[in-house]
């Protein structure tokens, strides 16, 4: 294989790895917003908590941050989910009663607090310099094998999550959550403990965002405060879910792959810009993604793969159900 082909292949594998990691988070957000109607605008916070939790537990001893536990990677990932879930439980206990837009403001605020804490508590996270001694599994002789192995792991995790979430969505549990999303008042009158169930969905979704953070950190072997910017987590994951199809697990995954590919392509594009424009490039990318979302929603108003109720008969109604 010549160098150019190999380079391209590695680029594609890297793309797929990160897209699969984002897909895990998009599934988490789908559980929050798509299924239960919770406007969680704090994806970045849970992502950061998951990333740092797993890193601290698995990294070798270092004078720069809390570490030296040297635990195996699966322990780190499970802990990432647990700690994200616990923090979501605490946040949710305070904010879950808030209705949609207020919950959004609440979660944005709390995510920012989490991020700033992680940025400033140097003893814990090495602050703005970040952590670079993160172990990565399956590191092999060649980059190709390393990339492929990590991708196999993320795809396997993604598959397991997809199967579990589909089973949940199509069970009485999913029916109840969708009912709460459609009308909280009626769900309460039908005997459902709406606040407790919203909290349950909030915690479960946040756990997946934490897992996404852990997968991200072990893949890149670096985590710093800039990786937890809301733009590259909260904003992108939301765009992925909405463009892909809120309420549809497959839509969430498709959205993650499509949007991440385009997001990466915009980097190639902005690299061509003259130097005086380069500083504005990151804003230009956000602008392009926002524009793209508008275009997608003009054509597919409910996302590329809209929510589809398998119990529904007939299926072709007045709404946009193409593709």
């Amino acid at each position, binding site marked *: 294989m010549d160098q150019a082909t190999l380079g391209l292949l590695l680029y594609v594998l890297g793309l797929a790895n990160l897209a699969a990691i984002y897909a895990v988070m998009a599934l988490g957000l789908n559980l929050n917003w798509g299924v239960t109607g919770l406007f969680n605008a704090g994806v970045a916070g849970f992502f950061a908590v998951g990333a740092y939790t797993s890193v601290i537990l698995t990294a070798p001893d270092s004078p720069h941050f809390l570490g030296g536990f040297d635990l195996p990677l699966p322990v780190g990932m499970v802990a990432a989910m647990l700690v994200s879930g616990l923090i979501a439980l605490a946040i949710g206990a305070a904010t879950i009663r808030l209705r949609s837009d207020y919950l959004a403001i609440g979660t944005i605020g709390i995510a920012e607090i989490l991020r700033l804490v992680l940025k400033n508590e140097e003893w814990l996270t090495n602050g703005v310099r970040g952590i670079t001694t993160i172990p990565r599994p399956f590191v092999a002789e060649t980059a190709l094998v390393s990339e492929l192995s990590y991708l196999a792991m993320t795809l396997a995790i993604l598959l397991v999550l997809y199967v579990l979430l589909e089973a949940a969505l199509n*069970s*009485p549990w999913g029916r109840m959550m969708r009912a709460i999303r459609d*009308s909280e008042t009626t769900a*309460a*009158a039908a*005997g*459902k403990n709406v606040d407790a169930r919203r909290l349950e969905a909030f915690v479960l979704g946040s756990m997946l965002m934490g897992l996404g953070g852990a997968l991200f950190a072990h893949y890149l072997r670096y985590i710093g405060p800039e990786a937890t910017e809301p733009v590259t987590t909260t904003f992108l994951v939301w765009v992925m879910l909405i463009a892909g199809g809120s309420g549809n697990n497959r839509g969430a995954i498709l959205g993650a792959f499509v949007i991440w590919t385009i997001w990466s392509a915009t980097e190639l594009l902005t690299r061509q810009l003259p130097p005086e424009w380069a500083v504005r490039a990151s804003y230009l990318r956000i602008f392009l993604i926002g524009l793209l979302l508008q275009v997608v929603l003009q054509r597919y108003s409910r996302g590329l793969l809209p929510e589809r109720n398998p*119990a529904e008969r007939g299926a072709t109604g007045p709404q946009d159900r193409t593709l």
Partner: protein
Amino acid sequence: MSGARPIIRVEEARLSFGGVRAVDGVSLSVARGSITGLIGPNGAGKSSLFNIIAGRYRPTAGRVLLEGEDVTGLPPHALFARGLCRTFQIPAEFGQLTVRENLMVVPAGQSGERIWNAWFARKRMLEEEEAIGRRADSVLEFLRLSHVAGELACRLSGGQKKLLELGRTMMAEPKVVLLDEIGAGVNKTLLAELAEDIRRLNRERGITFFLIEHDMELIGRLCDHVVCMAEGRILVEGSAAAVRSDPRVLDAYLGGGRAAA
């Protein structure tokens, strides 16, 4: 109204929104096994009173007793567990669920409502689902909604949504049902059948009904006892015929308290 302990008892309930006193010191009893009507002009506080009884609003003052127990301020789902069900004046269906699913949501204690069971106790869950599905089908047949069972509930007509509201209460195993204008928007023939159905549920299963209704004919046909509210207070109560012919009731509907009886 004498005799057995009332199933619902409201004592001196008050509810204010800002300066507006929607419910202004209401005390009433609903006899067990009765069909009791609640009438009154628009803005009389009927729906607010229902919202207090069903736990949607906590009264500013006063108490609500269900089967003799103080349930003031309990959330709706806790009241549901105690056998109190309600419908809404403006139907609030689960729009993206099918009509059949709307009913299947209701039964309490479904094992599949725990995500763990949805993954690892599927056999039991599926057996329950079949039983609940059959029950939903029979309710749909009862309500003449079988032909739209698989439609998304948001596509139903206004009258059909009203029926679905009633259907939800039938999926529960209620002791008492609050019906908030179940007849509005339902065609006359069907309404007459519904009235029969309510009577039958009342007689055969002993379900108590407390209903808000504007159709005096329906009230006359169904209700053992009628309460008339105006301006947040109880104006008159008694038999349907007595309430209907009471000049104060006519006055409340027509004159808003200005004209002398």
